[in-house]
């Protein structure tokens, strides 16, 4: 696996539309059989990147290689790539079965093999017996499944997913995420998924690339991406994160002390800082402990007093927004960890917040 050449390779790929830079110098490679998710907000260039790999757009500069071969001159219909579109793009004048048959006919599969392959792939997406249904007779989830079967039936080298789940409701979306994972693992097809949904990225992928403003911000596996975001954008885009701005007063090893409004916070620095430099600290809501006013948390490095300004009940957890006078106007978000003996903090209650140095990540100001 390590020795085989990467299936997909992007080398300094850029795409400009007039003056607008949609993709700025993207580099990555993808090993056979893995699932990559390109995560980013709308307009970050992730879909353009996907469309270049599919062959619908050509890069302004740089090179895309598939199976080690440059593909600039290869039209989409000659690439072995299955794609599931955001709007699915199922052919409404055909049945589910005919949709799945279409690529097999276009790619000249032996006619005697086609019915069996169609049955097989409809089976894989659990749509056995739905072959003769018209597209508009299927539910949203069933249409997703047809689109997946159609993109996979000709056994492509690469599967591209362009946010196909974004239109579904939350429950169905989460169900389909697991379903995708199941199908991908069963078939082992190399997949590139594009989404703005961080949960989807974390659930579905072996590797995540975070993009913003056309540029790749970080490329890592889900756990390291979540634990060690390499910059402020990644830290704030994934998870519920509170941000505090300040000025460095002292550095010691990886620990950096910085002044925020009327207090000094201790954080974990990813890079070297100068005293006096402007920095931003990011702390995830689940890393912050919340206590009633009278208790003094032990073995915590940062301890702050504050007042609950919002209390949001999310069913499986309680989210607090706490205003700390010593931090100025910046609110801190907290997930309540203690579901067994709920200590409810009401709006207006005085509380104490605390967290460990290693959980407060410090980045240079952008």
């Amino acid at each position, binding site marked *: 696996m390590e020795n085989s050449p990467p299936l997909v390779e992007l080398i300094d790929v850029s795409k400009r539309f007039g003056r607008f830079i949609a993709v700025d110098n993207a580099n990555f490679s993808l090993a056979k059989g893995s699932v990559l998710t390109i995560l980013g907000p709308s307009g970050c260039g992730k879909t353009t990147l996907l469309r270049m790999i599919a062959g*619908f757009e050509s890069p302004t500069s740089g090179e895309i290689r598939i199976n080690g071969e440059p593909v600039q001159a290869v039209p989409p219909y000659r690439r072995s790539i299955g794609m599931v579109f955001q709007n699915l793009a199922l052919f409404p004048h055909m049945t589910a079965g005919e949709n799945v048959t279409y690529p097999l006919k*276009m790619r000249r599969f032996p006619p005697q093999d086609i019915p069996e392959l169609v049955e097989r792939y409809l089976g894989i997406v659990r749509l056995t017996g739905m072959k003769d249904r018209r597209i508009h007779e299927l539910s949203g989830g069933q249409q997703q499944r047809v689109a997946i079967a159609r993109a996979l039936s000709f056994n492509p080298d690469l599967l591209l997913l362009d946010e196909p789940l974004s239109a579904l409701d939350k429950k169905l979306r989460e169900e389909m995420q697991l379903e995708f994972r199941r199908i991908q693992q069963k078939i082992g097809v190399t997949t590139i998924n594009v989404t703005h949904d961080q949960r989807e990225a974390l659930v579905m992928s072996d590797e995540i690339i975070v993009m913003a403003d056309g540029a790749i911000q970080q490329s890592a596996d889900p756990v390291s991406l979540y634990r060690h975001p390499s910059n402020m954008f990644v830290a704030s885009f994934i998870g519920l994160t509170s941000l505090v701005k300040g000025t460095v007063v002292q550095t010691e090893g990886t620990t950096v002390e910085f002044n925020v409004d009327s207090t000094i916070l201790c954080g974990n620095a990813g890079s070297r800082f100068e005293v006096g430099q402007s920095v931003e600290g990011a702390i995830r809501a689940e890393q912050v402990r919340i206590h009633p006013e009278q208790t003094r948390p032990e073995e915590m490095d940062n301890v702050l007093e504050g007042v609950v300004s919002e209390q949001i009940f999310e069913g499986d957890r309680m989210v607090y927004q706490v205003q700390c006078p010593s931090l100025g106007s910046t609110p801190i978000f907290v997930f309540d960890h203690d579901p067994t003996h709920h200590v409810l903090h009401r709006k207006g209650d005085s509380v104490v917040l605390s967290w460990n140095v290693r959980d407060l990540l410090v980045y240079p100001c952008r």
Partner: protein
Amino acid sequence: MTSVKQSSHFPIKWRLLDAAERVAALVWPRQLHSYTGYLLLVPALLLVFVLVIGLIYIGGYSLHELDLANYRLKESFSLTNYYTAVTSTTYRTVVLRSLYGSFLVTVITIFLAFPYAYLMVRAREAMTRKFLLISLFLPFFIGQIVRAYGWLIILGKEGLLNNIVTFFGFSPLELIYNYPAVILGLIQYMLPFAVLLLAPAITAINRDMELASESLGAHWIQTFIHIVLPMAKPGLIGSSVVVFTLTLTDFAMPEILGGGTTDFIANSIYDGFFQLSNSGLGAALSMILVTLGTAFVVVIFSIAGTGTLGFSRRSK
């Protein structure tokens, strides 16, 4: 309803509108509001009604034979006019020529209009789209007769084209007063209608459908045949019906570019009324034309649906 508290603080516009509303309530009480939509149909119904009256009168004329003694229609009813129209080889030729011409014009026009409409919808540059739209509409504003004379200027014996031909030492060509000239004129006249009816159907096809087809292994010709054409079916039906019926009933192009050599049905009807003074025969020919046109539309609609002309609710 609760009465609205009168306030002199309201702007004058509001008070005027309130007064207008009260007057309207007297004329058209609230209980009748659910029928307001039907009220809007009245002008259209009146218009159709006038047409139907005309059709009934024409139908009436067609059943009276011309009395050659005094050049008036006889009092007695007979089917003589229809008998004449159907048995006369002249009229049979005219009817067949019109039908064949309409078929030819429809096929060629759609063939030319489809790429035009496709390009107009899909062109990336806004300028290209605007250019195509304007060049489509420009001749649209010029009347049919002016355009027919335009063709005479180009194709006539001393016309532009023949000037070039004679310049190179060839003898001038017979380019007008024949069937191809009529067909050419009609195609040019019908093209904008066809494009305008095709464009919405092509707009309705999501570009991703074509990209999906390509990524599934189809090159553009296959994509066109298997995806674009079937999905543009409503537009194809709509524009075919319009072009066919407009051509079938056309008068000016056969008259001017045909020069009396290639009459369509409408020209024969005109001759019946005004050259032969036989309004009975003209009326019979009119009834035949109406029947042919209606039959065509009914057949197409029952086979293929109403297309973009039906504004069908179940559109995908």
